[in-house]
């Protein structure tokens, strides 16, 4: 095991692309990751070999396809160490998963005055669904504040997690600041009052080992496209007893047992929450991506990315007027920064011309920008195929650009 970067880069065909005549240097992995040939092949194979609607067919292709889809579910189960495969609900991604919980949890448990607790560094997908509930149900949304280093401030946590709190929903790792949140501490605090916790793992599953039984969270969500799988597939893990209690989200085919105008009964888990024809090419792609990651080893990836993070941070720090955002003691492979007063859009545009892909702006986390009083940041985010040489190119590029601004 261990990272053989040269071999890994060969696995990703898109890395051969040139941008504005330059080789692609892709540092926007927190937005989406590239796909190894194995994943591309797995998806193609669905359509060339066994594509068929699943679960209720009697013919051969339908059986093969059903098996492939359910095998993928088991892969996800094992990947995050869920106790049962039926605790894995396939969704379109993290955003849909959070909306699913928000909607079903609200229908089942929430009434006006109930509180939901998030944090100040959440992605909009873990803020807005709850704000919609403020309107629809009259719930109260609260948040754990951050400090200048981008760490959650837990000093007043006992005033934030109270008898009125019905759900705590926190990111595992911040997509802007890279902060690895103290989720075990928060889960314990919540459980002391029998409050369930959802963890947004969109920026975590690709970087660190996730064990949902060890975390003991009630819900854990993530997106496939951020872990080398296709867009349009994601997973929601939920403890059996909670998913069983909750009302369905979408209604339709697949999630029912019997339907009649006199009454309809719902299917068992996981199908109760999977209405309509499932995205079986997506799930198969996700399964293939998990296989790919497991073959290399998530711990090896974690370690390699940490090396890159340390190297990049060290090099960036040598640039005059460098301003880092997100300097938590525990961080994962995302670096947000600004150089002096240069607008991130200006820097990002010029880096693009050098073939270097970064993301600029608020990164769907406007509360963070408001906190730091900045228009946005430049964000670089790593994946297992990035290299130190690419970091060197970035540093060169930034240096050249800052010279233009005098």
């Amino acid at each position, binding site marked *: 095991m261990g990272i053989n970067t040269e071999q890994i880069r060969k696995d990703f065909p898109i890395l051969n692309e040139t941008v*504005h005549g330059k080789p692609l240097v892709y540092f926007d992995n927190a937005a989406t990751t590239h796909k190894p040939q194995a994943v591309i092949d797995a998806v193609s194979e669905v359509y060339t070999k066994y594509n068929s609607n699943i679960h209720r067919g009697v013919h051969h292709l339908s059986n093969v396809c059903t098996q492939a889809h359910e095998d993928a579910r088991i892969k996800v189960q094992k990947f995050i160490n869920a106790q049962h495969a039926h605790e894995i609900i396939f969704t379109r991604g993290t955003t849909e998963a959070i909306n699913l919980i928000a909607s079903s949890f609200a229908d089942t448990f929430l009434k006006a005055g109930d509180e939901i607790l998030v944090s100040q560094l959440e992605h909009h997908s873990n803020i807005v669904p709850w704000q919609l509930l403020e309107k629809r149900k009259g719930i109260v949304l609260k948040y754990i504040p951050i400090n200048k280093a981008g760490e959650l401030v837990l000093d007043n946590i006992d005033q934030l997690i109270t008898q009125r709190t019905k759900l705590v929903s926190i990111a595992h790792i911040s997509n802007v600041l890279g902060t690895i949140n103290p989720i075990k501490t928060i889960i314990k605090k919540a459980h002391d009052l029998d409050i369930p916790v959802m963890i947004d793992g969109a920026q975590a599953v690709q970087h660190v080992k996730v064990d949902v039984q060890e975390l003991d969270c009630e819900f854990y969500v993530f997106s496939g496209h951020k872990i080398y799988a296709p867009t349009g597939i994601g997973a929601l893990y939920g403890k059996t007893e909670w998913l069983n209690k909750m009302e369905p989200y979408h209604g339709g085919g697949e999630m029912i047992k019997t339907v009649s105008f006199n009454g309809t009964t719902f299917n068992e888990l996981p199908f109760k929450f999977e209405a309509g024809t499932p995205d079986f090419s997506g799930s198969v792609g996700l399964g293939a991506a998990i296989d790919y990651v497991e073959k290399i080893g998530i711990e090896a990836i974690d370690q390699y990315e940490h090396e890159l993070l340390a190297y990049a941070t060290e090099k960036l720090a040598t640039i005059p007027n460098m301003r880092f955002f997100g300097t938590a003691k525990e961080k994962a492979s995302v670096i947000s920064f600004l150089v002096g007063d*240069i*607008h*991130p*859009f*200006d820097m*990002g*545009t*010029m880096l693009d*011309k050098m073939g270097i892909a970064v993301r*600029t*702006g*608020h990164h769907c986390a406007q509360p963070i920008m408001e906190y730091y009083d900045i*228009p*946005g940041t430049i964000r670089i985010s790593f994946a297992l195929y990035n290299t130190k040489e690419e970091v060197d190119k970035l540093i060169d590029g930034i240096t*050249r650009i800052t010279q*233009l*601004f005098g």
Partner: protein
Amino acid sequence: MSLKTQSNKLDGQMTINEIQEEIIEEFEAFDEWMDKYSYLIEIGNDLEGFKDEWRLEQNLIEGCQSKVWVHAEMQNDHIIYSADSDAIITKGIIALLIRVLSDRTPDEILNTELKFVEEIGLKDHLSPTRSNGLVSMIKQMRLYALAFKAKQA
């Protein structure tokens, strides 16, 4: 007399298309994109005249990436535009847009085909997916022209 001078209007003002051609020529001098952007940054930094009192919510054309403010007023049948942005490259392109569209009649503005941005190789900045406020800004400038024209009638 140069051809340019001959084609000038009697009042000494070049036509919109002549100005566009002038800009395209200026940028042809640059081979390297770095030099183009360097020039844009220069003219962006030089753009002045936007009064603080115009920096209002209603004048803000917000894109995802950079903020753009536009102010327009009529002076003797001509629309005078002023604009500002918090990103310098955007400001540079705005300076060029003002050079082309400002101090013109509403009809001239509405009948102009803005080809110079693409011809100087900055077509990317005009793509609707860019969400840098520029596309919205041009739209807004045209809307002002429409509104002022309607007022005149």
